[in-house]
């Protein structure tokens, strides 16, 4: 507890690579939740102790594939009701996780626990620069309230520059 500031947590984390279960990386983090914060995201400092594996080739493949699509990619319900994700949409699913990570960070308090429940809709938007742009509608499940609500988020991605959120919007009032 830090008087007049908030609550600070010191964490030791083990990250598991979802695509390579035997691979783990240790991290340490400091998370500061601000006092009485309705609109302020927690401050996060993260140190990765070790290396994340290289995904250069897979990134390049994906980038080239999407750039060469004649029509913009559009997809819905990833995974579908039965938990299936078509292999060619798996990278789109993973980028949605990244985008959701940003949303979750921006909206977390000490009393929330969010997960990405499903990608409701994704639309690729062709750009004149080198970034790929995906406009997502993602459903976030919050464990304590049990609400599953839609969020709009635009993600930009580039093999070297990585992922960035350019826009996001929370659920419209009246959404259940």
């Amino acid at each position, binding site marked *: 507890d830090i008087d007049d500031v908030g609550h600070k947590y010191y964490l030791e984390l083990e990250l598991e690579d979802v695509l390579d279960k035997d691979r783990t990386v240790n991290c340490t983090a400091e998370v500061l939740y601000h006092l009485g914060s309705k609109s302020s995201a927690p401050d996060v400092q993260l140190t990765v102790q070790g290396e994340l594996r290289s995904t250069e080739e897979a990134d390049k493949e994906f980038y080239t594939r999407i750039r060469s699509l004649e029509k913009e990619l559009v997809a819905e319900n990833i995974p579908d*009701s039965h938990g299936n994700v078509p292999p060619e949409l798996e990278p789109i699913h993973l980028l949605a996780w990244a985008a959701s990570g940003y949303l979750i960070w921006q909206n977390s308090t000490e009393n929330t626990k969010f997960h990405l429940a499903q990608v409701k809709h994704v639309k690729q938007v062709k750009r004149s620069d080198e970034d790929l742009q995906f406009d997502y509608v993602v459903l976030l499940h919050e464990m304590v309230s049990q609400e599953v609500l839609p969020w709009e988020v635009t993600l930009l991605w580039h093999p070297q520059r990585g992922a960035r959120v350019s826009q996001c919007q929370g659920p419209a009032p009246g959404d259940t």
Partner: protein
Amino acid sequence: MFKKMWALLVLIGAASVSAHLQDLSFDRQKVFRVIPQNDEQVEILNFLANIMEVDFWQPDSVTLVRPKMQVDFRVEAEKSFDVEDLLKESGMEYQVLIDNLQAAMDAQFDSKVRTASHSYENYNNWDTIAAWTADIAAQNPDLVSRSVIGETYEGRPMYLLKMGKSGQNKKTIFMDCGFHAREWISPAFCQWFVKEAVETYGKDTVMTTLLDKLDFYVLPVVNIDGYVYTWTNDRMWRKTRSKNAGTTCRGTDPNRNFNAGWCTLGASKSPCASTYCGSAPESEKETKALADFIRENLSTIKAYLTIHSYSQLLLFPYSYTYKLPSNYQELNSIASAASKQLASLYNTKYTYGPGAETIYPAAGGSDDWAYDQGVKYSFTFELRDTGRYGFLLPESQIKPTCEETLLAVKYIANYVLEHLY
């Protein structure tokens, strides 16, 4: 005894005059299974066969009935209540094999019309599950019988399967699935459990002992309306589908609707919220049916298991308070051992503990309610996974999830059997 039989004769005699002996509909007709112990009880069956139409399924005729023989027979709908009373009074061991013959037949004949056939390794829609409950009972009459404990808000019958070798004064374990509509892996587990019971009885010593010594009540889907809704409209629906006064928002969270610290914490008073506790405890037809059944059978129910997803947790009371239950140490060691059993198969890690501190405080849960009713062993399972797929657990994970969970459930059942009270 005989006074009752004469009274029955007069009653049935009067009814027979107007009864249609060649009924083409089998609606609400019951099939009973009895085991007459002695000549006196055999005589009662003879008496019944004399005063009304009794269709003997086994043996073929009443004249072949002997003491200690398993006897199955069908009676007309209107007669079934009197027959049941007579059997109860006589002290004869009996069970209702088929609760509604027409329904069982319809379910079987509908199998051609069914768009999807049942699979234990896929998610099945409600119609498929309903038909399966009839089939599995009809195919395994020695081990499974089906009954209806009530109706949902939208009028669907709530099927309950009773599993076990028939016997006298058996204690029971109650297990339900499908409280929350979107948790599809949950009903899948109840179906898997039933399958394992019928397939491994006589082959697996633990299962055989469990089914010989105990009965299991398995309610494959509690919140049927909600489950149907996740198939037709909204995969992420959680609650029931009842209408709420003064709003278009529908549904109550069935696991906040029990009378256990009802609506004091971790639940919402707003009908639009996902954790809406309802207008009153047991306001929902589904929760009332479940609670009524448990109350009615409290003398035999020794454990209560309720299956949810996701998070990989094994919880026990309390969730409506941070206070610990009186047999906390015992529940904790059972949970610990059961989690170990579960992990032994695929290394799936479960966290266990009292609900309030392990997941979050939440009042109105069925596990807390059952516990406070006197069911000493009350557990909530939150099955796979921990958030990667969440509610949308891939079908390829149904089998491993069910296999590992079964180990934990068998462990708990076995413990209960060895610590009956």
